[in-house]
């Protein structure tokens, strides 16, 4: 199994100039980041014709910000790695950039943003990189300050790589404690590689969760309803191909005066397996 980057060093050290350069030159990394940003934006469920002010948490070199720009939104990005932000400045992104640590809280005044996205950043908060770090406290500080900096009908979507079920629980618990509604959406749950976790949080009361991609749950539900309706339709009538159904058919033919074989103990009987 590949080593997780958050185990090797804290983010401000891991994303040094070399690592940051990858994010501007490696086409595979760029493609994946952009794809996830597009999905996150879709999960934000914004009105397509409007321009919004979006917060990009862990914006890095501004790859996800470019997706926001393409959709005519204005954005402000925050990241802990200076090297990554320097790349963003070189790429001349439209959004404004702030150097800051998620775990120290969002330095914005209340009601600022119409939404927030975060691509592959939240898992960094689940580790204690310094003795003074307490992941639970840092997550709570982050979520509570984020909650206040969002408007009251906003959503925040985080794509992240949880290490295990405990981490998912820790993150969602702290988010709920901070006042958010929502939960986890898992895209392509049956695939190891394409599987993606999205934490979808809402500020304005509980709303139905968006559908995950690549899960067959909804298809199964439809076929189940169909089956039930079929049996409902033929209520009172004998099941097709059953003995009762054959007898009823023969009776109808007799009433129509057609030539019909008599009913016997062999009528509608299954042939033995031997035959």
């Amino acid at each position, binding site marked *: 199994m590949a080593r997780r980057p958050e185990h090797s060093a804290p983010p401000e050290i891991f994303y040094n100039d070399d690592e940051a350069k990858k994010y501007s030159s490696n086409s595979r990394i760029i493609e994946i980041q952009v794809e996830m940003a597009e999905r996150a934006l879709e999960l934000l469920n914004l009105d397509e014709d409007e*321009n919004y*002010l979006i917060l990009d948490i862990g914006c890095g070199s501004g790859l996800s910000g470019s997706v926001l720009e393409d959709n005519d939104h204005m954005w402000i990005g*925050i990241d802990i790695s200076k090297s990554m932000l320097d790349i963003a400045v070189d790429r001349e992104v439209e959004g*404004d950039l*702030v*150097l800051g640590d998620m775990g*120290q809280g969002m*330095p914005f*005044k209340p009601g*600022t943003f119409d939404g927030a996205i975060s691509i592959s950043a939240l898992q960094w908060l689940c580790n204690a990189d310094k003795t003074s770090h307490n992941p639970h406290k840092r997550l709570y500080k982050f979520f509570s300050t984020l909650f206040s900096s969002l408007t009251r009908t906003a959503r925040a979507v985080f794509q992240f790589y949880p290490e295990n079920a405990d981490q998912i629980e820790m993150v969602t618990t702290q988010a709920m404690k901070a006042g958010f509604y929502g939960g986890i959406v898992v895209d392509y749950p049956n695939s190891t590689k394409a599987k993606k976790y999205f934490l979808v949080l809402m500020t304005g009361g509980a709303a139905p969760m968006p559908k995950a991609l690549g899960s067959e749950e909804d298809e199964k539900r439809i076929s189940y309803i169909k089956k039930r309706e079929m049996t409902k339709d033929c209520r009172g009538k004998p099941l097709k191909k059953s003995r009762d159904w054959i007898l009823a058919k023969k009776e109808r033919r007799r009433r129509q005066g057609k030539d019909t074989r008599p009913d016997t103990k062999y009528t509608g009987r299954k042939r033995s397996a031997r035959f």
Partner: protein
Amino acid sequence: MKLSTYNFLTSKAIKGVKVGYPLKLTIAKKDVVETEFNPTFIERLLPKLDWNTVYLAAQTVDLADDIPQEQPAAVADNEELLQRLHHLLLEIDVLEGQLECPETGRVFPITDGIPNMLLNEDEV
């Protein structure tokens, strides 16, 4: 850092700070980047802005004559004012300077247009 972002930033994250707003902005080097004027976007931005801080920002960049001290009732119909706000909030880019917390006096430096809001462990 654009002056719209300045309008949103606080130093509330510092331990013991109640409001931490508005921060005191000192500009050492700034740039003007022309961008496309989008009146609907400025209108959307208006309810989120704190007008006193908008005025404060205008004073810092010597544009106080362009911006009324009190927020006028119908900004949306005033095309000229919207254009001035666009210039003030979205076109002026602060490259070097500092932000100062009004309560503790903690200084956040701005380098290459990026404000450094990182805190030390004892300040959280």
